[in-house]
């Protein structure tokens, strides 16, 4: 992290960048917040550790409108989102100075707490210099520990890899965190009967409070005006008045980001009700891969996604029947 701060200070001082987009130290060991740093001194509050899960790519939409370059810290998975935003002309490459930061898997305090840990005061073992195998947690109720992997976000267990897909320079090492099959959960649901599937999603989606955090954090949800914010039609944007609305919101959103979602997992990270929203998107990714051939959104800026590039070999609509209830 020190190397990162030193480099950021240097680039800010020599005028290469006008500001730094990173994370500011929080008031709890686990709550650093995304932040813009405009002065060298303010960078003393810069932090980068296991709790810096927020994907900063989306903040670059606004930063692209500002004067001068913004230094942005992107983790390997964030770089896919940045590329996708480039493809969609929502960010300006010339306005970004990308430092690809190493990643040893990002932690989720809720997962740590799910292991029964309460009253967290300090957490050791989450720094980039740490081995990241065990977290030593000091709590009001005594010393506790938790394996690093147990505290990791779901997305890190199915990590896309240590490689940054776009960057100006790289700082820091990464760790292999992938220990689960990416589509296993999707396959488990595909194997359910329609009634079981319905029950599963009903239980999950009934928790939705329509806070729109999933949409607002999503780098693929970058429309200037969301259709769900329109006052012109009866979308019951904020009401969970009818379970149909909740399902429709998430399903429509999944369709809107299909083929563009990089599976960054931010939707599931921010959901206050712990709804595994990424499953919708991952299902679409799996289907696209199966029907149109492997495609990774954001792997390369400017690539044409299967859903927006027609070929004569494309699947016919009848594929729906051939695949059955899958």
């Amino acid at each position, binding site marked *: 992290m020190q190397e990162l701060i030193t480099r950021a200070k240097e680039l800010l001082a020599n005028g290469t960048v006008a500001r730094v987009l990173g994370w500011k130290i929080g008031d709890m060991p686990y709550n650093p917040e995304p932040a813009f740093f405009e002065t060298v001194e303010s960078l003393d509050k810069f932090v980068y550790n296991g709790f810096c899960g927020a994907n900063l790519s989306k903040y670059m939409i606004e930063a692209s409108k500002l004067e001068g370059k913004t230094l942005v810290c992107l983790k390997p998975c964030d770089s896919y989102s940045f590329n996708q935003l480039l493809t969609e002309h929502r960010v300006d490459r010339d306005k970004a100075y990308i430092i690809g930061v190493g990643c040893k898997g990002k932690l989720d305090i809720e997962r740590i707490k799910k292991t029964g840990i309460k009253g967290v005061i300090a957490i050791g073992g989450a720094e980039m210099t740490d081995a990241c195998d065990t977290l030593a947690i000091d709590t009001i*109720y005594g010393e506790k520990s938790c394996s690093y992997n147990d505290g990791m976000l779901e997305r890190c267990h199915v990590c896309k890899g240590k490689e940054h897909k776009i960057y100006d320079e790289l700082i820091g090492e990464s760790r292999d965190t992938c220990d689960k099959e990416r589509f296993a959960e999707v396959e488990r649901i595909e194997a359910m009967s329609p009634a079981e599937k319905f029950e599963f999603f009903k239980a999950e989606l009934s928790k939705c409070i329509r806070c729109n955090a999933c949409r607002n954090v999503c780098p693929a949800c970058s429309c200037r005006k969301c259709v769900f914010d329109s006052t012109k039609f009866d979308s019951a944007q904020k009401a*969970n008045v009818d379970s149909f609305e909740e399902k429709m919101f998430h399903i429509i959103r999944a369709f809107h980001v299909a083929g563009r979602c990089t599976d960054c997992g931010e939707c599931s990270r921010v959901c206050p009700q712990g709804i595994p929203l990424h499953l919708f998107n991952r299902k679409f990714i799996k289907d696209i891969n199966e029907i149109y051939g492997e495609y990774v959104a954001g792997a390369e800026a400017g690539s044409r996604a299967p859903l927006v590039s027609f070929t004569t070999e494309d699947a016919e609509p009848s594929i729906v029947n051939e695949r059955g209830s899958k």
Partner: protein
Amino acid sequence: MYKIAKENLASLFALINETKELYLPVEVAGQTNFAAYTAEANVDLDTLKTVKSPKDVFFPQSENLYTCNKEDNKLKITPEKLVDAPFVVFGMKACDIKGIEVLDRVFLSDPVDSFYAARRANGIIVGLACHEPEESCFCKVFGVDCTEPAADVATWMIEGELYWKALTEKGEALTESVKALLTETCESKVEAEKSAVKAIVEKLPYSNLSLEGWNGNVLTEKFNDALWNELYKPCLACGTCTFVCPTCQCYDIKDYNTGNGVQRYRCWDSCMYSDFTMMAHGNNRNSQMQRFRQRFMHKLVYFPANNDGMYSCVGCGRCVDKCPASLNIVKVIKAFSEKGDK
């Protein structure tokens, strides 16, 4: 003072539910929120904080107000029936009960909101004292004693037993109706529990958060502070903080077209949303900074100005736990204090 063994609570809930609707913390798909009791419900009294505060028992996220139909080409308005049967909310924490006190100031002030008032009149609150407060809790700052929920009945969970004490007439009546399941006991264990938990509260990192600088005539000074321009920046403009908050009370009024009429309903709204103040000829708070500032100014300055200094925050810490960008009211208060110190 009475007590009941934890394993007998299922019978207690069933007994209450025989005559009254019962709302209590229920786990669904890994998350605990207040919900109506059913025999199959996975009741969870161990989770300290439900994701949403239980305010929706009194002020539902969505509720119908009336329906408007055309009959013989004449408009007919049918108001929604008000709640008219007693119901019980079991397991509310002291901070959330204080939250209801804040909502009372809004909905029970003239003109009284009859939908809310009917629920308040019929609701019997059984409070549950906190056993293991968390680091994000700061109810002490707002004068809440988490060991002494100001409910109709206060309860404490101690070593597998629930201690039960009626505090109001409504509470006495409820106690009477379930007495068969309760055994009389002395208060000594409860007193010991209270002092133990109070000692923990003292150690919580936010317990000594200072509100200095927020009371008094500070509206213009705070409103114009340049700090807001920095603080709001990570805000995603979602409604998480407002929807999990026990005191946020803003709502929207909307129509649902039923096909043969219109159902008028209200639903929670968020001052964080861009369309909150949108009108035909523009928006008077058109930047996220303004909307962000509105939320905190309302809680810490505007609301107290209208309500004898009562803040519209009870220190439940849900925003601390849930904000996707790790922003929250504590960080805002601290940022202003730090600035003052310089």
